[in-house]
């Protein structure tokens, strides 16, 4: 029974759900709720980016741009237009999806390094707009974000955000798992390996690249919204170039094309600096060194390598 269950793609998610549910029993302080929330939100964005990078094989160095759209939608919407927080999340999603659609159509014709530079440009553009439109966004100093109110309940305390963000992450991950084994997922994986072969088999390559881009933008936007709402504060830097690089690192480090890999990569990269914080002088050196060693010795990424070692197909 367990063996059969473990072959199912969603099995890994069940394990992660259990870990998330049990972990608070071991938390020595509420700080860890906050760290968990940060991990889940980063993981949500990484799972989305993995659809673009791991499934469809297209790189983006500008996904923090979509993260920023989601974050500022929930900051500016309620502050300047009196939109309720939950509606601002949806507006952010719609905005990110539309921008991804419009930007993606021309730039997804580019490949490899050219695509990387074009997406990089997009990310920089968004962060410049957020920095310069001070009247709306508070400029480089950032702005505070109104608390999210759901069914009359103000989502404020750390534990509440821990559970809420975990729930959203698990749902997002489930959708990504569903996608992998669907006709759309197969089309994306196919064009990743050979665009000509995909095309002569009837796959509209441009269409599926665009879908991957739009879907991953929605994940990033939702993650940005949750981050802004849970921190009650947002700065343009949190949606800047370094954030894009961080997301790409999570995907590659955790395992390209693996949903669990994205989550593991995010957990790893979010928690490692905390673990290394005691060794102040060498913290950054160690962080860089560990990332390099993982890439050298576990080239497929943390999760696929470990899953193989323990004899399970990676979802």
């Amino acid at each position, binding site marked *: 029974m367990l063996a059969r269950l473990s072959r199912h793609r969603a099995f890994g998610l069940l394990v992660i759900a259990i870990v998330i549910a049990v972990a608070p029993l071991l938390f020595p302080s509420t700080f860890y709720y906050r760290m968990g929330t940060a991990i889940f939100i980063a993981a949500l964005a990484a799972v989305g980016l993995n659809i673009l990078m791991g499934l469809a094989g297209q790189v983006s160095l500008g996904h923090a741009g979509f993260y920023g759209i989601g974050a500022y939608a929930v900051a500016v919407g309620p502050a300047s237009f009196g939109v309720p927080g939950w509606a601002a999340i949806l507006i952010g999603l719609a905005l990110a999806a539309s921008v991804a659609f419009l930007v993606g159509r021309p730039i997804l014709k580019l490949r490899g390094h050219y695509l990387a530079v074009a997406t990089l440009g997009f990310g920089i553009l968004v962060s410049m707009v957020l920095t310069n439109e001070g009247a709306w966004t508070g400029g480089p100093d950032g702005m505070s974000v109104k608390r999210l109110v759901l069914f009359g309940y103000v989502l404020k305390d750390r534990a509440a955000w821990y559970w809420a963000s975990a729930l959203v992450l698990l749902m997002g991950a489930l959708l990504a798992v*569903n996608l992998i084994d669907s006709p759309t997922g197969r089309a994306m994986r196919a064009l990743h*390996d050979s665009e000509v072969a*995909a095309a002569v088999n*009837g796959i509209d390559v441009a269409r599926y690249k665009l879908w991957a881009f739009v879907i991953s933008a929605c994940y990033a936007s939702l993650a940005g919204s949750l981050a802004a709402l849970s921190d009650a504060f947002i700065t343009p830097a949190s949606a800047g170039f370094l954030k894009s690089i961080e997301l790409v690192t999570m995907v590659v480090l955790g395992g390209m*094309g693996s949903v669990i890999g994205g989550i593991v990569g995010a957990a790893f990269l979010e928690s490692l600096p905390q673990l290394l914080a005691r060794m102040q002088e060498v913290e950054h050196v160690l962080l860089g060194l560990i990332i390099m060693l993982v890439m050298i010795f576990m080239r497929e990424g943390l999760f696929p390598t470990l899953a193989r070692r323990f004899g399970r197909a990676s979802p």
Partner: protein
Amino acid sequence: MTLLAVEGLAIRFGGVKAVDDLSFAIEKGQIFSIIGPNGAGKTTLFNMISGLYRPSRGSVRLEGEDVTGLPPHLLARRGLSRTFQNLQIFYRMSALENVMVGCHLKERRSVLPHLLALPSVKRQNRESRARAEALLARVGLAAEAHKDAGSLSYGALKRLEIARALGSEPKLLLLDEPAAGCNHVETEEIDALIQTIARDGVTVALVEHDMKLVMKISQRILVLDYGRKLAEGTAQEVRQNPDVIRAYLGSQANAGAPHA
């Protein structure tokens, strides 16, 4: 009845005319072979017919409709499918999944239900899997279905591409050197396979260097040389054509000749 009509087709790369003023027609149900020395323009011709290259001149008609310059995925919808001389396998997928991708056009393609894993998607996956399993069995790869495509032998990959190309139930199947690099036994398997495909009503256009195979199974043969038509006819006619004899014997006599 004519399935594919090529008229005055030409393409140049820089100053080089890779294919020049080429016309021919493929009748429904035929096995139509295209032969010629290396560099004669055979694969270039396939690339134009399947939409990978846009011809500089001329037209391609499929079932009477002008399809010149249509992108490959739209040509696939009109019933054209192909394999590749240098394999184009989805190496990150299993053999079965490769063929399931070939069934793409038979699948419903709206994305939202796929994200939500609606019951209809499960049914769809089951159908594609059954279809792909049948195709793998047909090319003799049933036992390899769940292996990584990357772990299959060269000969098996050649047949995997054929199975994948059949997934869309094409009217016209372009096979680009399906027997290249295959041993004697594998070549005979491919030979038998092509004949059953044709018997099932799929028209086959074949580029192949194995003359024994070509002469045996083709109803009609087109001989290309330097991108132009050198001869066209039945195996018998082509074999006796003095131009063909000269081109082929010539290329064997001077191993260093430019088109050898």
